[in-house]
């Protein structure tokens, strides 16, 4: 297929340039309107009206001059041509063809100071010019595009809104070629252009094509051999049946569906939280495809599974719940400060995705105004959005908001869970109450001691001013260790729960790093012959403030040691800092470091005896001397520096528990234990992202999509153009069940067509309607509507059985054509829209990776489950977490986590697309990063190494035999004599080149040379393109 046209869209560019040109011509012609320009609504005039005039009127005038208000200002409405001509109290608003005489001109140009319109900011000169142009051209007002009310009898209904009927089979000349009706529709179109179908593909090509198509993997040499050997009739049908029955089929086609379900394992957008349960939806989809679940049921489950009877299949009893994850998987702005906007944005994402997925309609475009091109009104939008307003998707709309997860368990188990959770909530609230009270008491005491704090603060400031502050002894590299000083390596703790790292953060020196349990603790025993004052210096590295407490013999001597970041976490960022001078007793002393979170990377500390008349003291020591709390003294010092003896008001420390009196501390600890134990005993039920029924409510139409400007209430119903204007309004329940049933009704004009078109697209690389997600006016028209309608109607008649549809397609002669080039046909139909040959296609991102793993023998075929290693709702990415997920798993790519905003780089390179938005038509681009991936990525290097080792291990083969084996495995065909000769020469040449390299490469030269050959094999076009 012609990929470059999509890549570039020169058509779009030319189109926009054309529109601009029209606009320019229009403006230039303003001064003197040529009467010839006053044409009845043409396409260009429609475009001008819809792009420029309707939005302008809607934005600037409708608020006061339309049916949005019960009493239009001045009795004037501007929302139809008739209304403009009728005018208001002041007479007609316009004189078509005569701008100068139009009242509208006087209003918008502020000709009359008393009647300046619109109120507020005046229209821009360009906007006025647009209006002038439009009125001068006779004020054409196209009635067919979205104006209210819907035209009851459009002259010729748009094709997509008329339900499909089984079309008559066309007459064809080459009737014998047609294996089934599908072929006749294709053949008729080809014959009409004087073209003939390409000859059938050979069997090797065919099995390779079908195997990639249905499973996303290459056929094994044995599978190829078996097919070649099967001389009985129906051999290809047997291959197709085998492939459809293999679990890999569901993995391949389920992944296609995940593209339109915008599946991902994380939220993306602003707060990239992990979706720890999303994989259940993914596995459900794979199961549904493998089970050949009727597609109408599949659709209904995703929209309203919770309201359907559960499946009786063993292991599938919760599938109907899991399926509704479809509605919940969207990316959400979880930190939106405005909860109403957040909710409406989430609903919008659901409506927009659902509209495109099932109906191929861009309903989301009607959120702010009537759809500009399709007959979808803003009322239609809010009528549908009301269904999701009445659905519970979210647990809450706070910052950061939580989506709902539903326990997949029996009623009794869920009840038990609910009881534990209520119990926990109660105890947590009791705990916070206690903390609150004790904190208040703490503050009260501190405030009573206000004068003491002021005094102590002055002392601290005096000490600081007198230079009785400390500087690290070993600050300079040239400093020498003073007499009597001792250095203690941080790793030499006697008790502690932190790791000693000597390889990464502590490479070469050894540091403490967090091991998991909090608080981080390390204790040291220090023995002194005499009591005395020692200065404590610390050496550590930390990129942020990881200050910790230091206790000497059970007493806090430093509340915030090591608060200064050093610029990094590695040894080259280590620095010395002075903590303070402390009095150590004779004999054993216990020095303890403690932090509620992770330690900085502590390398060592130094104790230096202090001499001199006045011993420097730290803030903590001053506090201890007079029995004050160091945290509050720090506040007092800060306040004294800012305001002298002025205002001093204590604030509660962030984690005040450690400052509580013994009794309160013990109580808190006991409560923590209880909470912990209830937490442990809580039933651990599997959960799924799922929706449920919310409070039934309608939405009001929101002008410009803004909830601060609500208009009429919109009863919940389906779009008028698809379901008529005489609909009953949904009363009870959200309406999701009604929506699910309506979508899958046989007479729904769009659902079946949109679905079979997707299937066609995934088989052939291009849809019959090329714009798979847009069947509206701006989408493409079907290349072959009888074919589309035949596929859709026969699919529905057949009970929405997808595997039958696959068979219909794969067993057609259309599918089995070769990709042979034909200059004549290429000239007549360069994009192969008519299917004169089978289109050659590049493998998708997943298939590229899976195939490389497959031919190297490394592919792990385990199905299902999660490869995520994150806690619930944890942030997947943060500033320091660049590669949140290990993608080196040899599982099929389908099972690799899809992390929004930090997509796997292989996916980024190979057109996986943005998993934030649905996409039924992945593009295929050819860009240099793909080649770099083949040349340098770890996946390719490790796989090709394994492949080379496998080839070299074949003792029964010589080198030529190994080359032939490589060709069979990768391409499913024998290598030609020339290919074998060239490959042998290449391997030899590379081996020699490696032998000329320095040291270690030399001894692996043979393996490395074979790896080079394997790299070429999997990088070649023949490997990544399917004929």
């Amino acid at each position, binding site marked *: 297929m012609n990929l470059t046209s999509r890549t570039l869209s020169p058509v779009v560019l030319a189109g926009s340039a054309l529109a601009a040109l029209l606009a320019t011509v229009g403006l230039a012609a303003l001064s003197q309107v040529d009467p010839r320009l006053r044409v009845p609504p043409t396409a260009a005039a429609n475009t001008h009206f819809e792009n420029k005039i309707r939005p302008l009127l809607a934005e600037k005038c409708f608020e006061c001059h339309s049916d949005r208000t019960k009493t239009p200002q001045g009795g004037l409405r501007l929302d139809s041509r008739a209304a403009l001509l009728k005018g208001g109290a002041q007479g007609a608003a316009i004189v078509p063809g005569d701008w100068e005489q139009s009242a509208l001109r006087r209003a918008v140009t502020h000709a009359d100071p008393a009647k300046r319109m619109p109120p507020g900011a005046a229209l821009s000169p360009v906007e006025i010019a647009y209006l002038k142009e439009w009125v001068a051209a006779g004020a054409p007002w196209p009635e067919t595009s979205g104006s209210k009310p819907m035209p009851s009898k459009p002259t010729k209904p748009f094709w997509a809104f008329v339900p499909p009927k089984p079309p008559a089979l066309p007459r064809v000349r080459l009737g014998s070629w047609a294996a089934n009706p599908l072929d006749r529709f294709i053949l008729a179109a080809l014959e009409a252009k004087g073209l003939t179908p390409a000859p059938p593909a050979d069997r090797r090509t065919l099995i390779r094509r079908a195997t990639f198509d249905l499973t996303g993997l290459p056929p094994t040499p044995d599978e190829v051999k078996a097919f070649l050997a099967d001389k009985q009739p129906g051999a290809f049908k047997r291959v197709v049946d085998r492939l459809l029955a293999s679990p890999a089929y569901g993995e391949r086609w389920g992944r296609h569906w995940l593209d339109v379900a915008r599946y991902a394992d994380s939220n993306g957008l602003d707060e990239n939280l992990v979706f720890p349960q999303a994989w259940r939806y993914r596995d459900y989809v794979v199961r549904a495809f493998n089970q050949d679940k009727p597609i109408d049921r599949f659709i209904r489950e995703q929209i309203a599974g919770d309201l359907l009877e559960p499946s009786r299949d063993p292991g599938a009893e919760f599938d109907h719940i899991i399926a509704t994850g479809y509605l919940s998987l969207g990316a959400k702005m979880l930190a939106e400060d405005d909860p109403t906007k957040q909710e409406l944005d989430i609903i919008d994402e659901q409506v927009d995705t659902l509209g495109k997925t099932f109906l191929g309609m861009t309903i989301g475009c009607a959120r702010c105004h009537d759809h500009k091109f399709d007959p979808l009104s803003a009322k239609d939008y809010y009528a549908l959005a009301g269904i999701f307003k009445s659905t519970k998707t979210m647990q809450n709309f706070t910052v950061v908001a939580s989506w709902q997860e539903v326990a997949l368990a029996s009623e009794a188990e869920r009840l038990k869970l609910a009881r534990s959770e209520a119990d926990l909530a109660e105890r947590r609230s009791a705990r916070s109450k206690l903390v609150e009270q004790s904190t208040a008491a703490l503050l009260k005491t501190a405030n009573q001691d206000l004068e003491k704090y002021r005094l102590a603060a002055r002392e601290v400031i005096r000490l600081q001013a007198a230079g009785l502050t400390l500087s690290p002894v070993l600050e300079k590299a040239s400093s020498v260790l003073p007499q009597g000083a001792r250095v203690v390596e941080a790793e030499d703790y006697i008790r502690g729960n932190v790791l000693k790292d000597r390889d990464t953060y502590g490479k070469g020196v050894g540091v403490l790093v967090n091991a998991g349990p909090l608080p981080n603790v390390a204790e040291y025993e220090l023995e002194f012959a005499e009591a005395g004052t020692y200065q404590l210096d610390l050496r550590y590295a930390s990129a942020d403030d990881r200050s910790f407490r230091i206790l000497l013999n059970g007493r806090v001597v430093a509340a915030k040691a090591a608060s200064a970041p050093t610029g990094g976490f590695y040894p080259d960022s280590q620095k010395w800092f002075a903590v303070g001078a402390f009095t150590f007793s004779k004999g054993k002393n216990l020095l303890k470091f403690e932090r509620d979170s992770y330690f900085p990377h502590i390398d060592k500390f130094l104790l230096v005896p202090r001499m001199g008349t006045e011993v420097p003291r730290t803030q903590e020591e001053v506090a201890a001397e007079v029995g004050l709390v160091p945290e509050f003294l720090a506040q007092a010092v800060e306040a004294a520096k800012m305001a002298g003896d002025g205002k001093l008001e204590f604030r509660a420390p962030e984690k005040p528990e450690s400052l509580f009196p013994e009794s309160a501390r013990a109580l808190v600890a006991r409560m923590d234990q209880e909470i912990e134990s209830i937490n442990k005993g809580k039933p651990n039920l599997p959960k799924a992202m799922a929706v449920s029924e919310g409070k039934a409510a309608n939405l009001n139409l929101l002008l410009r999509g803004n909830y601060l400007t609500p208009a009429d209430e919109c009863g919940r119903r389906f779009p008028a153009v698809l379901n008529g204007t005489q609909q009953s309004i949904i009363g009870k329940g959200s309406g999701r069940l009604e929506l699910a049933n309506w979508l899958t009704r046989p007479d729904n004009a769009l659902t079946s067509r949109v679905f079979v078109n997707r299937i066609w697209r995934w088989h052939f690389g291009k849809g019959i309607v090329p714009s798979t997600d847009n069947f509206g006016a701006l989408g493409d028209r079907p290349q072959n509507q009888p074919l589309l309608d035949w596929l859709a109607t026969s699919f529905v008649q057949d009970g929405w059985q997808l595997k039958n549809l696959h068979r219909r397609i794969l067993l057609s002669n259309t599918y089995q054509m070769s990709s042979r080039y034909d200059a004549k046909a290429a000239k007549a139909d360069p994009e192969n829209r008519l299917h004169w040959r089978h289109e050659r296609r590049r493998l998708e991102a997943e298939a590229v990776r899976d195939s490389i793993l497959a031919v190297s023998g490394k592919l792990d075929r385990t199905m299902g489950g999660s490869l995520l290693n994150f806690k619930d709702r944890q942030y997947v990415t943060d500033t320091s977490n660049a590669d949140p997920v290990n993608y080196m798993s040899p599982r099929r790519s389908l099972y690799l986590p899809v992390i929004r905003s930090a997509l796997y780089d292989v996916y980024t390179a190979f057109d996986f697309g943005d998993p934030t*938005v649905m996409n039924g038509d992945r593009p295929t681009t050819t860009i240099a990063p793909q080649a770099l991936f083949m040349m340098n990525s770890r996946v390719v290097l490790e796989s090709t190494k394994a492949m080379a080792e496998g080839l070299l291990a074949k003792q029964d083969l010589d080198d030529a035999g190994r080359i032939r084996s490589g060709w069979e495995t990768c391409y499913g065909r024998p290598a030609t004599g020339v290919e074998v000769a060239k490959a042998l020469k290449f391997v030899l040449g590379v081996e020699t080149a490696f032998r000329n390299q320095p040291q270690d490469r030399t001894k692996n030269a043979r393996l490395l040379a074979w790896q080079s050959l394997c790299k070429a094999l999997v990088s070649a076009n023949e490997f990544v393109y399917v004929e």
Partner: protein
Amino acid sequence: MNAHWNSNIGKRISRREMLRLSSVGFGSVAFMSLLAEEAEADKRAAAPADPLAIKPPMFPARAKRVIFVFLHGGPSQVDTFDPKPLLTRDHGKPVPFAKPRIVSGATENLLKSPWEFKRYGKSGIEVSDLFPHVGGCADDLCFINSMHGSNSRHGGALLELHTGSDTFVRPSMGSWITYGLGTENRNMPGFITICPTLTHGGVNNWSSAFLPAAYQGTPVGNASISADQAKIPFIQNAQTPKEIQRMEIDFLGEMNRAELAKTGPDHGLEGRIDSFELAFRMQSAAPELQDISGETPETLKLYGLDDPKTKNFGQQCLMARRFCERGVRFVQVTHSYKWDQHSDLRRDHASNAMEVDKPISGLLKDLKGRGLLKDTLVVIGGEFGRTPVAQGGDGRDHNPHAFTMLLAGGGVKTGFKYGATDDYGYYSVENKVHIHDLHATMLHILGMDHKRLTYRYAGRDFRLTDVSGEIVTGILG
């Protein structure tokens, strides 16, 4: 309207001709490298529909490329480039008007800036003591004091600043610009982002969204990697020496051409053969471009590479110049998520400013010295500003209603202040510039009409500025 715009994107236009036609001159270095690449460019232009081929602007451009210096977290305008005497006078008093309807956290009374402002240069523009080096460049800068956006959270605000939308996934401005103009050096991607942040939208801040993948930003490292370790994904492997890789690619080319002879003409297959050659060239070009060992000690010093505090960001800025010089269309450097001072404003704004002040001034001086500044647009700023009222004693909250952006080069007015905030710097009030307006203006400076640079996706013609955006003509020289 420029006739080129209507024509096929792949149309042949000689670079020499473009140079002659262009109203804007080139820096001499860029000029030389351009001529050297001309043959290559011509060959490329002839190739069928190359998405990155050079496209002429819609009308004569003032700048050819952009460097965006992003200070992530929300630098405070009233402590940097927007002095507010009344804020100092009324320190500690309540703000005399309503605070915004939507806020991100509770705030207190007015908090004066702890820093003094000084006048710089002939223009006498006031810059705080946080930015003495940037202040020294005041006569080359345009200060837009009246910026405002719509989102008060980092995630939304970053997406809005980078893509124009805080609600949906949209292409990044770098992608739009590369889509509009192509790229001048096919050995490198057209849009590069150096050490970008992975939070607050992450890759969506440099993704091409629905635009073709060729326009996506290529990250060089990320925020957790120091600038001297930052690399393009898959750019090298340790085991294959260059000459052996050359043998591999020759052999592969031979296989691919043999297959092509069997299949008949196919653009996809042909394009893929070329892509390996391009990748091979890129593999040599990228490390060479990142190798700063050939820079003079004076240049290194200019960017602060001699000081551990400024070394990392200085290296990012220096790389930005090197990329731009070789024809990369859009380069972003990011001072990652550091500017979010809800508390400890005095300490942390000081250390943040220390890290970027000299590198930014170095970049501006270096670009100017090499003649690159006149056709490079430099944009400097954060995703929003901060409140003039205090939070947590010594901090300020997010404030999308007022912040300052610095522009340089690309024919914008210099030594010039545009727009103003209220007496306390809470809201933009005079000549307000929304982020959409900034985007519209950036495209205008690059010779593109933001209303006509569109791409059809899902039934709609999308653009960077959505349905808004006014060109800020007041800053154009």
